[in-house]
Each structure stands twice: as C-alpha cells, then as structure tokens.
C-alpha cells in the first residue's frame, strides 16, 4: 500500500467521503511514502453518459494508485481496478480522515467483487 485514493465531495482529510466511485466529485490521493496529498477532479466521470465507473477506474490507475477506498464500486469499475492490481475497500466512514484511520488500523477488508450493480 503506497498510493491511496479516496472518493470525496471535498478537498482535504476533513472532507466528507463520497459513497459513489464512478460519479464521485473528487479523488483525494494520499501518497504514504512522500506524505503528500493530491486532489483530482472527476469531471469526466461525473459528466459521462455511460461508462463513468470505467472512466474513473482509468483515472485512478493512471494516477498510480494501488488502493481505493470508496463507498460502493460497481462491476465494470471493479473489473478494471482488479485487472490493474488496485485493491478496493468499501467503507461507510463519514470523512476521509475516518476512512484512512480505518484502513491503517486494518478494520477494512479488501473487496473481492463489486458490491453493487451498475447504475445503483
């Protein structure tokens, strides 16, 4: 685990988690090794008429992410993430901070499949 992406409606650790992946507002990417933060706007995914999950998965994979923490992840996005070696964690944490704490404490389990249908 080196680069973690969180889906969020805001721009920092205190921000709310966005339970959606494909149509999340932003991806907050935390680089553990360099202790740095990066915010990526998911405009393309939000505005896609179809294939938002795939689009979002491509965005985080290209950003070099190896771990994704989100609310829910659909089947197409999961297929792309899984094939690219990204571990997916579903969580119900309210904020990014909380989600990160859960991940580091080992209370979150990596998902072995998508947890919702497409267009949930």
């Amino acid at each position, binding site marked *: 685990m080196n680069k973690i992406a969180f889906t969020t409606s805001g721009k920092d650790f205190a921000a709310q988690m966005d339970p959606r992946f494909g149509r999340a507002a932003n991806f907050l990417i935390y680089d553990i090794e360099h202790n740095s933060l990066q915010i990526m706007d998911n405009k393309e995914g939000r505005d*896609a008429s*179809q*294939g938002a999950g*795939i*689009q979002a*998965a*491509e965005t985080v*994979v*290209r950003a070099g992410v190896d771990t994704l923490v989100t609310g829910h992840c659909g089947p*197409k996005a999961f*297929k*792309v993430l899984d*094939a*690219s*070696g990204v571990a997916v964690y579903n969580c119900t944490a309210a904020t990014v901070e909380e989600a990160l704490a859960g991940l580091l404490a080992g209370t979150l389990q990596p998902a072995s499949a998508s947890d919702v249908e497409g267009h949930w």
Partner: protein
Amino acid sequence: MTVKGIKKAVRIAVASGKGGTGKTMVSLNLAAMFGRPVQLADCDVEEPNINLFLRCAQLEKSDVTMQIPEVDASRCTGCGACGEICQFHGIVSLGARALVFPELCHGCGGCMRTCPSGAITERPHSIGQVAVGQQGHVRLVEGRLEVGVSLVPPVIRAVREQLLDDMPAILDAPPGTSCPVVATLRESDYVLLVTDPTPFGLHDLKLAVATARQLDLPCAVIVNRAGEDQVGLYHYCRTEKLPVLLSLPDDRQIAEVTSRGDLIAHALPEYGLMFAELAEKLKLELRASGGLL
C-alpha cells in the same frame, strides 16, 4: 425514390417529437385503411407495441448483431493503443490485458485496426431482434432492443433492411428527435408528424419539423386530441406551410377502443372513414415524390 434505376415503393415515417401524441395509433389505423397491401414497421425498438394491436399469429424472428472485439490474451502486450482510440470505454487496457465491455462498444472496429500485435478479432454480439409477421393485408416488421443495450439505431436499420422494396411502408418512429428518430426518418419519402394542441406538443413539433427539414423530407401534420387551440398550433402550421391532413377530436371513445387493443378504424366507422381519407390525401401528396404506391 430511385435506387440504381429501380423504383422503390414509398416509405412514410410517422414521428412526433413529444411522446404520447398517438404515433402508433395513427400508424396502425392508417395501415388498416390503406386500401392495399402495406408494411408497418415498429421502429420504436425500445418499447415495440404495434403487435399488441395487430396480434400476428406467427412471427419470424432473427437476431440483430454487432461486431465486438475479442482479445487474444497470448498476443496482447497491454500497450494501451485500443483503449486510447475507444471514445466509449468499450475496451480498456492499462498495462494489463485489454478488457472488453460489450455494453459500451459501438462496433466501430477501431481497436482491431489499431492493435499493433494483431491480438484483436471480432465476434458477433446480439443487440436485439427483428420479427416479421402478417395480419390481413398488413406485413409487420418489428424491431426489439435487447434489455440492457443502449444502441438503438443499428436495430432500427435492421428493421429497415427487412422491409420489401416493392410494397409501401409506414414506419412508426420513436418519440423525440435524436438518433433513433433520424435512423427511422432517413431514406423515408414523407413524414407525418402527430401532435396535440398543447404547449409541449407544439414545442416538440417545431423540433420535429426542423429535423425533417434538415433531412430534406416533406412533412405534414396530424393533430390528435384536437380541441380549443390555445397555443397557436394551426397558425404555426399555416405560417410554415405544413398541411394538416387530419384532426382527430378529443373523444373518450378513441381512448377506450385503443386501450382495449382495438383499432378505431375498425370499431368506430366514422374514424375508419377519416383514415381512408387520410390515405387518399397521402397518395396525392406523394405523387410529387415519384414513389410507387
């Protein structure tokens, strides 16, 4: 219309813009009173309903397929060229083996052509069915989109391909003015636009007229649920030189007969006469197009 010197029978598209104006009702009743063998094409492939009224005893079905990519894992190098050319995320390759998402593929074949290692071939993928049936003098051609598929135009094109060239055809279009409607109107000779005298009906009629004119198609208007014209529908038709070929009143009996799955042309003689007159007016209108009737 003339193709390679062979005269084809006319194709009349019934469109509207606004949904629920009575396209299918007009198409069915016009076909019933056409006075000679005619084809009726259900191009509303997302929810075909003509056969609920026609009730053909037998339907001959065939699959509509589209070519989608198939990746040979042993040859794929994960270079990503296929994913870069695909605008629909139908194929994705991020360093790993390319993944295909059939429901997003538009069947352009671009990925196969750009793959430098020849790892992509194509295979047919079913996106719908076309059914052909016969009821009296009406030959039905119905398109039906597979559930979960969003590519409507290829199924409509498959319906058009099943139409016989030597028999007139009435094409019942889907509502709206987007790609599915254009796919229905294209290669038609004449467009009947069904509307109602409501603000929404007139607004969408204007869009539909603009669409038909963009395609260089002559069009006429049929007013359904006609009553007090508070929106200036008839004034608009006069200004735009759109003939109003039929006005159907806002009559409860029409709704009752139609909701039973029957045709007003059969159940209510006065309307049968109106549709027979509509067929005659259309023949006069179409004489100009040079199509065979």
